[in-house]
């Protein structure tokens, strides 16, 4: 059904379309440039040129590897929530908060009404799409995750905060569609954190995507999906991009209990390991997926964004996805 939707949108994809989740590692020169910007040794315009150069590198690399649905690699973004908080009115930047290990981020604080100031991601999407003939995904963070990963000092409760984000995100989605974007990903890694709030997440996503002419993907990872499955399938998207490998494919057992009714971007590579999985292991994971999910519904990608890997590691992992998909197509 979703494949028909894609064709209606003018997007023709092979069996087992390959993609990646969103972020890709920054080349060393960009890492250095961002550090130089902080020290005042580089201007914002110069940094932007380097971000464009890095984006062009990743678009060319994905094309060269044979990826089917591309991402811009988020070379210009930091944290997936903080990026939007830096562009949308209503936020104050907090001090650093730890995520895990030695990773810290500035968790946004909602301090007043959140508003849409105009297109936030469209220009970058247009730039990336202009570099390739293949479709490039529009990349956003979903309303529930925006809410859950922000501190809230303004709205009365979590639902009100979530719906406020939904209203803003819908405008951004409409702007992406108006620019020609056909495939839009709204990441919801927080989807399963409070199972009792799943209705809020469903309501918010419906408010973002209902009636809009695009193929929608959501990415969720590192969650306790056993508490929200199969109800989560009611989320108003066409494709769930799920981290399968890090959890040793245990999610598949859930899918045996109730048919997986949407398309799935099936994470076949652990993004938190420096090691590249053996090709046979990747193929085995896809085979496991196909034992439960019809092949027309299956996309292939890594578990999550690859920004924590080195450039070479990320390229190797993307290549492994493409090789595995080709093996099954053949």
């Amino acid at each position, binding site marked *: 059904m979703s494949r028909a939707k894609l064709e209606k949108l003018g997007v023709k994809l092979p069996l087992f379309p390959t993609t990646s989740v969103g972020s890709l590692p920054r080349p060393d020169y960009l890492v250095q440039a961002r550090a130089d910007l902080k020290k005042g040794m580089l201007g914002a315009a110069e940094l932007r040129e380097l971000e464009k150069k890095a984006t062009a590198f990743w678009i060319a690399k994905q094309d060269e590897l044979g990826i089917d649905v591309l991402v811009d690699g988020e070379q210009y973004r930091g944290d997936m929530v903080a990026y939007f908080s830096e562009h949308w009115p209503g936020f104050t930047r907090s*001090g*650093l*908060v730890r*995520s*895990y290990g030695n990773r810290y981020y500035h968790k946004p604080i909602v301090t007043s009404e959140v508003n849409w100031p105009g297109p936030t991601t469209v220009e970058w999407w247009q730039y990336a799409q202009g570099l390739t003939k293949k479709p490039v995904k529009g990349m956003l963070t979903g309303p529930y995750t925006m809410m859950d990963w922000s*501190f809230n000092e303004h709205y009365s409760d979590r639902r009100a905060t979530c719906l406020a984000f939904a209203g803003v995100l819908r405008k951004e989605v409409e702007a992406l569609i108006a620019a020609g974007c056909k495939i839009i990903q709204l990441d919801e*890694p927080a989807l399963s*954190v409070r199972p009792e709030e799943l209705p809020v997440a469903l309501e918010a996503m419906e408010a973002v995507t209902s009636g809009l002419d695009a193929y929608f993907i959501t990415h969720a990872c590192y969650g306790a999906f056993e508490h929200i499955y199969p109800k989560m399938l009611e989320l108003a998207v066409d494709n769930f991009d799920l981290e399968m490998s890090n959890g040793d494919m245990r999610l598949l057992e859930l899918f045996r209990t109730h048919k997986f009714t949407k398309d799935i971007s099936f994470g076949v590579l652990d993004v938190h390991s420096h090691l590249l999985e053996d090709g046979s292991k990747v193929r085995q994971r896809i085979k496991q997926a196909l034992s439960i999910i019809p092949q027309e519904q299956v996309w292939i990608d890594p578990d999550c964004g690859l920004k924590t890997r080195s450039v070479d590691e990320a390229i190797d992992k993307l290549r492994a996805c493409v090789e595995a998909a080709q093996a099954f197509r053949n």
Partner: protein
Amino acid sequence: MNLLLASTGSYPRIGDSAELQILRRTFAAADRGEKTAADLADAENAMTRLAIEEQARAGLDVITDGQTRWYDPISHLAKKLSGVRIDGLLRFFDTNSYFRQPVLTARPERHRALVADEFRFACNALGTLATPTGKAGKLKVKAVLTGPYTLAKFSLAEYPEMSALEARVQAYATALATELHALADAGAERIQVDEPAILKYPEDWQVFVQGLGTLLRTRDGLKQKGKQIEICLCVYFHDAGALYEKLVALPVDVLSLDFTYNPKLAELVASAGSPKPLGLGLVDGRNTRLEDVGAIARQVEKLLPKITGGLAYLGTSCGLEYLPRDRAQLKLELLGEIRAAAGL
């Protein structure tokens, strides 16, 4: 009536100034091979000292070491046990932070200290600080352990004998019981046992009680040997309302609750009362919004008379690691303001 101010566990290990980023920078340098394990230990020691100093300065009566050395609440303990491999990342409850999942490849066994050395360090570090006014001989360090049920619930088993949750809970409980001895030897009098998972999986109540029972029997055994330790059971990250009556009936010395998931929990607790001291997690450890001092003070005034013995510990709903450092400090200062507003 007595209201003590207590830490609920973790404390931010970073801040915005260069001095407060020493741990992050040292870890990054170590990853590049430019710093050694000894450098890392120094950085952890420095941030631990600061955590202790800031808690003491905020006027707390019971502090922790800030759990600055903990990679996460699960793997910090599990990785020190034999028979455990530390595996991939999983989200820790409804937080945007992650833990590394233990995989049991054999029966987990304790052969070295889990937190006793860290407790000793904290006591020594506290001893180097100037005693805050009125706190001479009263300021206490509390050790924190993640409980056997939560450890077991978030562990996987490759070893067939550990495939049942009951077996994992008992194995962890046995290891933690040995740690209680080590903590008692180190002079610990207060030990917080974190069991957040039981709120989320109440169907495991019997298994949870069995694991806790092992620790409580160890406490009782230590008492007979003249070593008084108090076990504070700490639950958070979910609504405790449904389990409150069962939780408060457990033979722990203190029950610490997170009041932020159910706006009616304070009412429920005030109505049911408590036969033992309570930890009142009334200040939200997960959101930067600063609470209305008067409103929280009124909740305290309603709760305290319902607690047998009239002793309670006012704290944040969970450890403060989820907040930026400046807000964590403000939340701790708020505790003192609430106590003052309650006239205590």
